[in-house]
C-alpha cells in the first residue's frame, strides 16, 4: 500500500516531468508506460490478499482541522477500477505515442494522461471524501485539457468547456452532499459512513445528501439529462476518448454510486431515482447511437447506454444486479476501450471515420480487423466473449426484478441497438462494401494495433474462463458493495434458459437492423433532430447564455466606473448595515468623561473643522489638496498628542506621499469645475452626515465597553513574553495579527498592479478614450 500511496505522488511528479522527458528521449518516450505498468503489476500482486477479504489501508493526516486526511484504501471495488485504470493507461500511453507521432503537443499529451491517471487512481483509492473530491476535480480538469487538446479548433474548445461546466457543477453538488454526510456523521471518511449507514438513513437530510451526490455521479457518468457532453467530448484525440471517455473517467460516477451503495441503498429514493435515470440513459443512448455515422460518436452514444445500464443495475440493488453491474463494467471497459482504439487505427489508416464511406479495409488491416471483430462480438454479446456473459446476467437480473416484462423489454431494445452499432463499427469498415471514395487503407505500426488487439483478446480469454474474474475480481468487488461475502459463479453455458432465448432474439433483431442500417438511418436521424430542441443539449446553451447575460446586467448596474458612486455606495451600505445592527441590538451609549480641553486640542480641531468646510467650497484643485493635507496633518498631530507615535509617523508619511502623488497627476486632470447640481450636493452632504453620525455613535459605544475590555491589557502584558517585542503596535501588526497584515500587503500590491495596468491601458487606448474619469469635483 505504501507503494500505491507513493505512486500517487510520483504520478503527479511524473506528469510534470513528462514533457521534458519526451523532449529529451523523443522516440523512446513511450517508455513512460512503464509507470502504469508497474502499478498494474503491484495491483496484480495484491489480488489474492484483497480476494481473501483484506483491505489495504494507509492514512496520513493532512489538514486535520478540516477533516481532510490522506487516507487511501484498496478493497475489491477499488482494485477492479485501479487495474482498469493502470492497465488501459499503459496501453493508451503506448498507443498515444504512435497515434500522435510527430505531433507538437505529444509531450503535453503524456503529461496530461499521466496526471489524469494519477487523479483517477486517487479517486478510486481515496477513503476520505474530501480527498476523493480533490482527485475527482483533477480528473475533470485533465479531461478539460485533453478534450481541448487541439485547442486551435473552436469545436474542441467548446466541447472542453461544456464537459468542464457540466461535470464541474455536478462535482460542486457532490461536495455539498459530502458535507451534509459529514455533518450527519462528523467524519469525512467513507468507511466511517458505511459503518454508520443506519444513522445516516435515519437523518432527515439523508435524501438531500443522496440527491446532491447523485448529481455529481450522474454528470460525471453522462446520465440523462447530462449525457450530452460525452458525445461532444469526442473532439479529444482518440486515445483520450478510449481512456477517459469510455474506459475509466466516465465510470467514476458508477464507482461513486457503487462505493456509496452500502450507505444509500436502503433509501426509498435509491431504486426509484437511480433505476429510472439508468433506464432512460440505457435506452436513450442506444437509440441515439443509431442516428450516428461517425465511428467515435457511435461508440460514444453506446458508451452512454452502457453507463446507463450499470447505473440501472446498481439501482435494482439485488445481489444478482450488483454482480451484473460489475461484470458489465469490466466487459465494457475491455471491448469499448478496444473499439475506440480501433476507431483511431481506422482513422489513421484510411483518413476517415465516417461509416457510410468506410468499407473493405479488412484485408489491408488484418490485425485491426481482428481486434475489431473480437471486441465487436463482445459488444454484441456473442459467446464465448465476456460481453455474452454480461448480457446473459443482465437479462437474468431484469427477469427476476419487479415489472420483469417492461424492464426486460426495454433492455432488449437497448441491446438490439448495441448489436446493430457493433455491426456498423466492427464489421462494416472492414468487410462491408466501400463507399464511392478510394481510401487506400493501410495498417499502422504495432504500437497502434497491438493495444486494441490485447484488450480484445482479453475479452475472449475472460469470456472463455470467466471464473478468472468471477472469483478474483467480481466477488471481492461485490463484497465491497454488499458488505458481506457473495459467491460469484460466472459461466458461459447455463443450459436452455429464457436468457439464452432473449440473447438469440436480440442478436437476430440487431443483425437485421445492422444490415438494414443505411436505409434506416435517415429516418432515425430526422426523428432525433425533431426532438433535439426539447432535449437537455438545447437547454445547455440557453442556460449558459442566461448566466452570462445576468453577469453582464449586474456588472453594468454595480460597476458604474465612477469613483464617486463607489465611495457613495460604500458609505451608504456601511451606514445602513451598521444602523440596522444597532437598531436590532440596542447597545449602551456612554459619553466618556471629558477631560478639560487643552489649548492645542482646540486649535487642531478648529483647523480640521475649518478645512473640512472650506474643502467643499474650494474653487481650485491645488487648494483642495492643500486643505485635505492640512486635515491629515492635524489628525497626525492629534495622534502624537494622544501618545500614538507609530500612528502619527505613518500618517505623516502617508499624507506627504499622497500630496506628492496628487501633484504628479495634477497636470493630467481636466479643468477643475463645480459640476454637481444643488440636489446632488445636498444628497452627498446628507450621506456624509450619516457616515459621521454613525462613526461617532460607534466610538461612543466602544468607549462604553472599554472599561471591561481586556484586550489592551492582554497585548500590553503578553507582547514581550510571547512575541519578544515591547512595541505593542508593531507586535500586533507582525505577530498577533500577522495574517491580517499579510492580507493587507497583498491588497497593496494588487492596488499598485491596478494603477500600473490602468495607466498603461489608458496610454494604449489614448486615442479612443479621454482622460480617466477621476477629475471634476462632483
Amino acid at each position: 500500500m505504501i507503494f500505491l500511496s507513493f505512486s500517487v505522488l510520483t504520478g503527479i511528479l511524473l506528469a510534470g516531468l513528462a514533457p521534458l522527458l519526451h523532449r529529451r528521449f523523443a522516440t523512446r518516450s513511450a517508455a513512460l508506460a512503464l509507470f502504469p505498468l508497474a502499478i498494474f503489476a503491484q495491483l496484480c500482486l495484491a489480488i489474492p490478499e484483497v480476494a481473501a477479504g483484506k483491505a489495504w489501508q494507509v492514512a496520513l493526516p493532512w489538514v486535520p482541522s478540516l477533516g481532510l486526511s490522506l487516507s487511501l484504501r484498496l478493497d475489491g471495488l477499488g482494485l477492479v477500477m485501479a487495474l482498469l485504470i493502470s492497465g488501459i493507461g499503459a496501453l493508451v500511453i503506448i498507443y498515444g505515442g504512435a497515434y500522435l507521432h510527430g505531433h507538437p503537443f505529444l509531450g503535453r499529451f503524456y503529461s496530461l494522461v499521466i496526471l489524469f491517471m494519477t487523479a483517477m487512481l486517487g479517486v478510486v483509492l481515496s477513503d476520505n471524501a474530501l480527498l476523493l473530491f480533490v482527485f475527482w476535480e483533477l480528473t475533470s480538469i485533465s479531461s478539460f485539457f485533453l478534450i481541448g487538446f487541439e485547442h486551435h479548433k473552436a469545436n474542441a474548445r467548446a466541447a472542453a468547456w461544456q464537459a468542464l461546466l457540466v461535470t464541474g457543477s455536478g462535482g460542486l453538488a457532490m461536495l455539498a452532499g459530502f458535507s451534509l454526510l459529514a455533518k450527519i456523521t462528523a467524519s469525512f471518511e467513507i468507511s466511517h459512513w458505511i459503518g454508520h449507514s443506519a444513522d445516516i438513513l435515519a437523518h432527515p437530510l439523508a435524501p438531500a445528501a443522496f440527491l446532491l451526490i447523485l448529481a455529481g455521479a450522474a454528470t460525471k457518468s453522462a446520465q440523462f439529462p447530462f449525457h450530452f457532453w460525452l458525445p461532444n467530448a469526442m473532439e479529444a484525440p482518440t486515445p483520450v476518448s478510449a481512456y477517459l471517455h469510455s474506459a475509466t473517467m466516465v465510470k467514476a460516477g458508477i464507482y461513486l454510486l457503487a462505493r456509496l451503495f452500502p450507505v444509500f441503498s436502503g433509501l426509498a429514493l435509491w431504486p426509484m431515482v437511480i433505476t429510472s435515470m439508468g433506464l432512460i440513459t440505457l435506452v436513450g443512448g442506444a437509440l441515439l447511437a443509431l442516428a450516428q455515422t461517425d465511428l467515435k460518436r457511435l461508440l460514444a452514444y453506446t458508451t452512454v447506454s452502457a453507463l446507463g445500464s450499470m447505473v440501472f443495475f446498481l439501482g435494482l440493488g439485488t445481489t444478482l444486479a450488483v454482480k451484473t453491474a460489475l461484470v458489465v463494467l469490466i466487459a465494457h471497459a475491455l471491448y469499448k476501450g478496444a473499439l475506440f482504439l480501433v476507431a483511431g487505427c481506422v482513422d489513421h489508416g484510411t483518413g476517415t471515420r465516417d461509416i457510410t464511406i468506410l468499407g473493405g479495409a479488412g484485408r489491408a488491416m488484418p490485425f485491426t480487423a481482428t481486434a475489431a471483430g473480437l471486441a465487436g462480438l463482445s459488444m454484441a454479446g456473442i459467446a464465448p466473449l465476456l460481453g455474452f456473459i454480461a448480457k446473459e446476467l443482465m437479462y437474468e437480473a431484469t427477469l427476476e426484478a419487479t415489472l420483469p416484462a417492461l424492464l426486460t423489454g426495454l433492455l432488449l431494445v437497448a441491446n438490439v441497438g448495441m448489436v446493430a452499432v457493433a455491426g456498423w463499427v466492427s464489421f462494416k469498415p472492414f468487410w462491408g462494401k466501400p463507399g464511392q471514395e478510394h481510401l487506400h487503407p493501410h495498417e499502422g505500426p504495432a504500437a497502434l494495433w497491438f493495444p486494441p488487439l490485447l484488450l480484445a483478446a482479453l475479452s475472449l480469454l475472460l469470456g472463455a474462463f470467466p471464473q478468472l474474474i468471477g472469483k478474483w475480481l467480481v466477488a471481492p468487488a461485490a463484497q465491497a458493495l454488499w458488505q458481506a461475502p457473495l459467491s460469484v459463479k460466472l459461466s458461459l453455458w447455463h443450459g436452455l434458459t429464457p436468457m439464452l432465448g432473449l440473447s438469440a432474439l436480440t442478436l437476430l433483431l440487431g443483425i437485421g437492423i445492422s444490415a438494414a442500417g443505411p436505409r434506416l438511418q435517415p429516418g432515425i436521424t430526422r426523428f432525433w433532430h425533431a426532438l433535439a430542441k426539447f432535449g437537455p443539449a438545447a437547454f445547455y446553451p440557453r442556460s449558459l447564455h442566461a448566466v452570462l447575460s445576468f453577469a453582464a446586467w449586474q456588472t453594468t448596474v454595480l460597476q458604474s466606473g465612477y469613483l464617486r458612486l463607489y465611495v457613495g455606495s460604500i458609505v451608504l451600505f456601511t451606514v445602513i448595515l451598521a444602523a440596522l445592527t444597532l437598531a436590532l441590538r440596542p447597545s449602551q451609549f456612554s459619553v466618556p468623561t471629558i477631560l478639560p480641553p487643552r489649548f492645542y486640542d482646540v486649535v487642531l480641531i478648529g483647523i480640521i473643522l475649518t478645512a473640512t468646510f472650506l474643502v467643499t467650497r474650494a474653487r481650485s484643485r491645488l487648494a483642495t489638496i492643500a486643505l485635505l493635507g492640512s486635515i491629515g496633518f492635524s489628525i497626525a498631530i492629534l495622534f502624537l498628542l494622544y501618545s500614538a507615535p507609530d500612528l502619527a509617523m505613518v500618517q505623516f508619511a502617508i499624507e506627504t506621499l499622497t500630496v506628492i502623488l496628487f501633484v504628479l497627476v495634477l497636470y493630467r486632470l481636466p479643468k477643475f469645475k463645480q459640476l454637481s447640481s444643488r440636489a446632488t450636493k445636498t444628497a452627498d452632504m446628507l450621506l456624509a452626515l450619516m457616515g459621521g453620525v454613525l462613526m461617532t455613535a460607534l466610538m461612543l459605544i466602544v468607549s462604553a465597553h472599554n472599561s471591561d475590555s481586556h484586550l489592551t491589557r492582554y497585548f500590553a502584558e503578553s507582547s514581550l513574553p510571547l512575541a519578544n517585542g515591547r512595541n505593542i503596535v508593531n507586535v500586533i501588526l507582525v505577530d498577533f495579527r500577522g495574517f491580517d497584515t499579510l492580507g493587507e500587503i497583498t491588497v497593496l500590491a494588487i492596488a499598485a498592479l491596478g494603477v500600473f495596468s490602468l495607466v498603461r491601458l489608458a496610454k494604449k487606448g489614448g486615442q479612443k478614450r479621454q482622460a480617466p474619469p477621476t477629475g471634476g469635483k462632483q
Partner: protein
Amino acid sequence: MQRSILLSAAAHYLMPLMLVFSIFLLIRGHNEVGGGFAGGLVAASGLMLYGIAISPAALRKLLPIQPHLIVGIGLLSALLSGAIPMLMGKPFLTGQWLKTPLPVIGKVGTPLLFDTGVYLVVIGVVVWILLTLAEE
C-alpha cells in the same frame, strides 16, 4: 517643470539619510517606535524625493531591480516567514526566534523577516506607482 537646484542638491543628501533612517526604523520597530510600515514609507518618501527632484529616469537607474520585483520579493519574504515555522511543525506565521541576539540588530526572528517583507512591499508599491505616473 523647471528643476530646482536647491531641491535636487538637497535630495542627493537627504535620500541616503532617509534610507538609513528607514532601516533604523525597521530594525528597532519591534521594541520602539517604528516598524516595517513606517520604515517603508520613510524610505519611499526618500526615493520619491529623489525621483521628483532629479528625475524619474535617475530613480529607475538607481534601483537595483524593477519596483514590481521589490513588491514580489517583499510578498515572498512575508510568506517565507510564515512558512519557516511550518517546517518546524508549528502553525503558519508562528514567530520563531534565534536564541542569541546578533550585534547591532538585536534579536532576530521570523517576525523581523515578515516586517522586512512589509517594508519592501511598501517601498515597491509607492515607487512603482510613482514611476508609472511620472514616466507616462
